[in-house]
């Protein structure tokens, strides 16, 4: 096997990082892209190039789901089976695929053409049930479209941009009806996306709005120019006044976080952008990366300046291939116009940005796990103390910010912090991109003020337009799968961090998963616990063992073998996981268990007592029916 | 204080007293004499006479929890259930158990006794070994009471007699196939796993299926 051709590219890659070891993931991608998988010689080569023993290379390869040590089929169909897709019929999609291809999940067809896998959340929930076919996201998969996709996949050598190709698809206003099919025999899915702003979604309208000229014409990079002429302290003050809070999920005041960077530390400072969006139910960062990457770049420049950093890394999840490509293109444009590199616009401020792709691990969305992964290891969260602002990436002061948070920064600087603060509540300013998915009429991405109520988001015609097919609402998860569930009676709550915390749940990443009366909550919890069991990094004992235990009990209950003490055991195990781990993954895994059982206990008790689903008994479907997209309108 | 009273005439003669004294014994004696005699002629067979158990033709019934001679329980393929954990050797108050452990080819079993001796002359029949055993590998339920021998050495049971309670010393032939240490082979280790499993279990493809749930005790 010849690795010589990879040498020069490898040199370039290694040269981008302060420590050789950090080139681990990119070099593994390089090998996999060349050979289709990572052979032992590849692992050896990578280990030698970055000075790491081959056992540690194998550790990394085995930890992330996107790396393969054996060749796979030419077309890799990865079916998402996490809760939002499960609610819209992912199981049916999988069954249909298995039948047509004649193989089970995890297998390859004998002719080597297709490999079928199940994966956890792709964050394409607005197009549920979604799959990833090689590099493309494809969805929603109705029975008809699935057959068309398969025909296409099996007959042509290239996969097509199909359905959810949110960058190339033409964008429509949220309230408008979807365009009818173009008559080419293919249905084109148009997601519902806000396009009116006032903060973030203004350029989501047009695919061409993503690029530099359109962005600059719209007032882009003015804020950066303004920031570079003021002092970093002033920038931090401005952001503080705007009440901008971390929109990745934790809700920590952004200006305060930037202030934690020690001023007198001689080590280099790093800005790391967390584009490892993985929270089921959330897909907002993907839209920013694809439709408004320059907003993010501008936000990065301002943030880096504020904290005194001259090197920024953006960690994009491995599944987001096209978003990463579009962001890279935007970066090239910005560099060409003098906004990235040395002496930006003559201000004397240098900033280098490096794109670092993940390889399939939800836990890398946790900021210290992200740093460990960036440094070339498995996604293991770090022990705190020390905190990243003091000792983070390569043990240097580091600030990790979410994509959406940084995209808010240019408007704040341009329009003033008061404008931003007034849009929201006293403690949280601005708007948010709410990802609505599940059993709603119009799943999509909606920008709304942070204090919008959950009821409005679900029912208002400006937003998701109500529960689908005239069904009754049963339950809602307001902030991604880790958030505690709310019943249909509890949706009169504002969606800002503090209101939701007071209501006993959390705003998190603003991924709203809506469940109607056909949903079996026991199955929903099974799906949530399956997700946490799959994604636990395994570093510390309560989470590693606890998530597996919770799933095994749920599996047994769902199969009809539940026992009366199981509910108490589940609550006890979940309670034991909380507060004892290195990161809050275990807490996040515990909250669904505690809240679903607390609020829907009778459903669980029925499952355990009878061994069957309550909904099946009442004649309702256990599996959500196939959702026919209104655009097809085929009666 | 009651004064010692005078004996009556009949008491002084002694003979009636003697007869009174042995009345119960005599009653049984004559009854049994009669019954045993008529038993010889085949009459009154259903009336039992003396309570004596005519051992060894008629063994005395024992309680289920009676601790008799030990035996090692056996797996389906003829190897002992014992995993050589030495808990019985440790707990034995008389220190009469001698175990040497060896490697079992099935990784789910891992350990087995290459040598397992119990010196019956030292054993106090306390039953602690049965209680301590985590694998139900040793039991004292053979109901064998006749352990007497002509020498101390002959009372030292090794793994042959323990696995097969019907064997008595001296054991002429070594029937055990798995690698073990026994006096018949001059205290050398003899035997092979291939002869037990047909092929070396670790190299066989379906070893996992063979060793999953394969734990029925041979009574």
């Amino acid at each position: 096997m010849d690795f010589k051709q990879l040498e020069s590219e490898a040199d370039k890659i290694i040269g981008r990082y302060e420590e050789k070891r950090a080139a681990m993931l990119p070099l593994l991608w390089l090998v996999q892209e060349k050979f289709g998988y990572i052979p032992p010689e590849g692992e050896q080569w990578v280990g030698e190039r970055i000075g790491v023993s081959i056992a540690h290379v194998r550790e990394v390869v085995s930890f992330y789901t996107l790396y393969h040590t054996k060749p796979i089929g030419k077309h890799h169909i990865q079916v998402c089976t996490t809760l939002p897709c499960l609610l819209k019929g992912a199981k049916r999609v999988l069954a249909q695929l298995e039948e047509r291809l004649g193989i089970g999940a995890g297998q390859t067809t004998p002719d080597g053409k297709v490999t079928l896998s199940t994966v956890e959340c792709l964050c394409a929930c607005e197009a549920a049930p979604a799959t990833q076919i090689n590099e493309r996201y494809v969805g929603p998969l109705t029975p008809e479209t699935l057959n068309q996709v398969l025909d296409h996949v099996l007959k042509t050598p290239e996969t097509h941009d199909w359905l959810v190709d949110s960058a190339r698809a033409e964008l429509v206003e949220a309230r408008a009806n979807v365009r009818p099919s173009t008559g080419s025999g293919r249905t084109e899915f148009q997601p519902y996306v806000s396009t009116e702003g006032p903060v973030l979604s203004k350029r989501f309208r047009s695919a061409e709005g993503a690029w530099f000229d359109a962005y600059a014409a719209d007032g882009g990079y003015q804020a950066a120019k303004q920031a570079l002429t003021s002092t970093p302290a002033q920038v931090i003050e401005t952001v503080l006044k705007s009440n901008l809070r971390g929109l990745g999920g934790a809700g920590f005041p952004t200006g305060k976080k930037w202030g934690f960077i020690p001023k007198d530390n001689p080590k280099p400072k790093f800005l790391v952008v967390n584009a490892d969006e993985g929270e089921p139910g959330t897909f907002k960062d993907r839209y920013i990366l694809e439709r408004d990457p320059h907003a993010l770049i501008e936000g990065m420049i301002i943030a880096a300046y504020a904290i005194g950093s001259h090197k920024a890394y953006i960690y994009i999840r491995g599944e987001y291939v096209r978003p990463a490509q579009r962001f890279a293109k935007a970066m090239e444009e910005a560099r060409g116009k003098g906004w990235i590199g040395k002496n930006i616009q003559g201000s004397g401020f240098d900033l280098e940005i490096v794109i670092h792709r993940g390889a399939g691990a939800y836990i890398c969305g946790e900021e210290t796990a992200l740093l460990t992964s960036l440094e070339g290891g498995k996604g293991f969260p770090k022990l705190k103390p020390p905190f990243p602002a003091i000792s983070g990436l390569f043990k240097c002061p580091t600030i990790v910010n979410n994509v959406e948070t940084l995209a808010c920064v240019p408007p704040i600087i341009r329009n003033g912090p008061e404008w931003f603060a007034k849009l929201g509540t006293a403690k949280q300013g601005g708007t948010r991109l709410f990802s609505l998915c599940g059993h709603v009429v119009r799943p999509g991405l909606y920008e709304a003020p942070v204090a919008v109520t959950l009821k409005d988001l679900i029912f208002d015609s400006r937003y998701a337009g109500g529960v689908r097919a005239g069904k009754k609402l049963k339950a809602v998860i307001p902030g991604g799968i880790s958030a505690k569930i709310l019943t249909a009676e509890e949706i009169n709550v504002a969606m800002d961090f503090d209101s939701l915390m007071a209501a006993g749940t959390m705003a998190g990443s603003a991924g709203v998963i809506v469940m109607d009366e056909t949903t079996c909550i026991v199955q929903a919890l099974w799906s949530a616990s399956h997700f946490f069991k799959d994604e636990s990094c395994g570093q510390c004992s309560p989470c590693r063992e606890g998530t597996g235990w919770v799933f095994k009990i749920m599996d047994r209950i769902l199969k009809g073998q539940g026992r009366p003490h199981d509910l108490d055991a589940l609550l006890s195990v979940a309670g034991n996981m909380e507060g004892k781990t290195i990161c809050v993954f275990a807490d996040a895994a515990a909250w669904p268990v505690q809240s679903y059982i607390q609020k829907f206990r009778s459903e669980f008790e029925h499952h355990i007592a009878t061994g069957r689903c309550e909904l099946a008994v009442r004649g309702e479907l256990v599996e959500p029916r196939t959702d026919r997209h209104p655009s097809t309108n085929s009666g | 204080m009651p004064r010692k009273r005078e004996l009556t005439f009949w008491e002084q003669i002694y003979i009636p007293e003697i007869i009174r004294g042995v009345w119960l014994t005599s009653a049984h004696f004559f009854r049994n004499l009669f019954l045993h005699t008529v038993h010889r002629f085949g009459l009154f067979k259903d009336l039992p006479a003396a309570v004596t158990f005519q051992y060894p033709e008629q063994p005395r019934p024992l309680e289920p929890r009676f601790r008799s001679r030990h035996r090692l329980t056996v797996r389906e393929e003829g190897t002992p259930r014992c995993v050589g954990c030495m808990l019985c050797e440790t707990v034995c108050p008389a220190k009469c158990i001698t175990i040497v452990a060896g490697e079992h080819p099935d990784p789910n079993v891992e350990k087995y006794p290459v040598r397992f001796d119990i010196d019956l002359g030292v054993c106090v029949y306390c039953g602690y070994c049965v209680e301590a055993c985590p694998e139900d590998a040793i039991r004292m339920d053979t109901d064998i009471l006749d352990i007497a021998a002509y020498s101390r050495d002959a009372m030292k049971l090794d793994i042959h007699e323990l696995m097969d309670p019907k064997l008595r010393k001296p054991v002429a032939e070594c029937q055990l196939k798995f690698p073990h240490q026994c006096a018949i082979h001059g205290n050398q280790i003899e035997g092979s796993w291939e002869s037990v499993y047909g092929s070396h279990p670790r190299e066989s493809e379906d070893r996992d299926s063979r060793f999953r749930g394969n734990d029925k005790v041979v009574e």
Partner: protein
Amino acid sequence: MPTLTIDGKQITVDPGTTVIQAAESMGIFVPRYCYHPGLSIAGNCRICLVEIEKAPKLQIACNTPVADGMVVRTNGQKVEQGRQSVLEFLLINHPLDCPVCDQSGECDLQNFYMQYGLYDPRFKEQKVKKTKAVPLGPTVMLDAERCILCSRCVRFTDEITKTGELGIFNRGDQSEIGLYPGKELNNKYSGNVVDVCPVGALTDRDFRFKARVWYLSSSPSVCNGCSQGCNIDIHYVTDRPHLAGGARVMRVKPRYNAEVNQWWICDEGRYGYHFIDQGRLRKVTHRGVETTWEKALMELAGALGRVKEENRQGQIGVIPSAQLTTEELFLIRKLFVDSLGISQCDARVPEKPGTSDDFLIKADKNPNTAGAVSAGLAGSSFDTPAVRPEPFGKLRAGFVEGRRPATQDERCTAAQIIDRCLAGQINVLWVFGHDLVKLFGEQTVKKLSQELELFVFQGSNENGSSRYAHWVLPSAVYAEKDGAFTNCHGLAQKFTKAFEPLKDSRADSQILTELFERLAAVGPEQAVHPSTGPAPDLIGGSG
């Protein structure tokens, strides 16, 4: 210097100390799996959770630096409940292997369960299955199901040996410890991963199934494998001769010594104990015929006395060994050299230096070369094959002070003694322990056996010399005697005997003492009474 309160007691410690270290210095034991003082902090086992006032959640003691005024509780309801939950989590997928697991009896899962657990288990699902009984190399056996993923072994191979063989693959509860497929764990310190593993996941292949841990007695000693002098504990069984083929020593474990070997020993030392029970000389023999100590000592004393009377000291050659204790070497010096006047007495044999590295392994495979030098039996300079090593940690460099002057014939090495034997100038040869066949060739030794008037071999194990010597005096090994070794850095370390010498061997000091008592009875008055003991200038001693 922060002051904190732990369990109601105050202590002042250096800044940067962690809570677990501060507690340990007060004698308060906080349970731990992943924490090891010789390795970096991992903080993943979570069993060391303690309660810290003002912190809402329990904190791990191993990674929390002490702060002034901190109040810590290592007991109490909250901490106990926390520990029990963590123990429960660790045990749910742990296999029920205690009967077959070698770690039983020294297993931290067992110990902490008995001390802090004692709960009713509730896990009623199928446990995760992983590979069992996998040899990782010639020295270590892995059982992946038993592993609690504390990562101590991974950190050891990364930080101490820097070989990086071990890794934790996959994620979640499918995480599994292992090697890269096709690789082996065969660095020179591989046995240490068995010591650091708190459970029975990594076990010693050499010790496998030999004996149960609770049968073992322990005796502190010093390794005799090389001149580093690592501190060890000898684990032995004397009352169960059916185990390990009658051997007494079952295994050797390192003993912590901050200056010499910290927590580690090399594999050569760890597995180099078999000679204590195998291949031992058990009988006093004269030309292959068994005889008694009495007869041997009388005859040899007589022979030596005669030589002295006839003033033939120049015809005697003595080759002591740097494997002997310092006391024995001084005894040899006092008796052979000083009182009998033998000048050809030297321990410098033409041994090929062994392998060495920059950690613990030294090229000089004798534990007491420095002792021989200090007794004046190895030249006056440190010219043995051992390379002058860098001090390890805070070791003292330099040597034992007050060396005795070398023998008069300073340049007379053992090789020269043998030459003179072959040339007929020496016809009485007394060899301690060396295998002359290995050093000088079989033909030479055969010739010596035929031509020498008296050829005595005093050693513990069978070797080329014992096959050809006229007289074989079985002596005890280091584990069977009290004494001291001085290592290559000049540190003298005393050790005590673990058990009595094998019948019918005797400690060298006893043999020499009795020999010269008879000499004194037989021969001239110059014989010094042996009870004047060894040199008074041994410095210090450890353990």
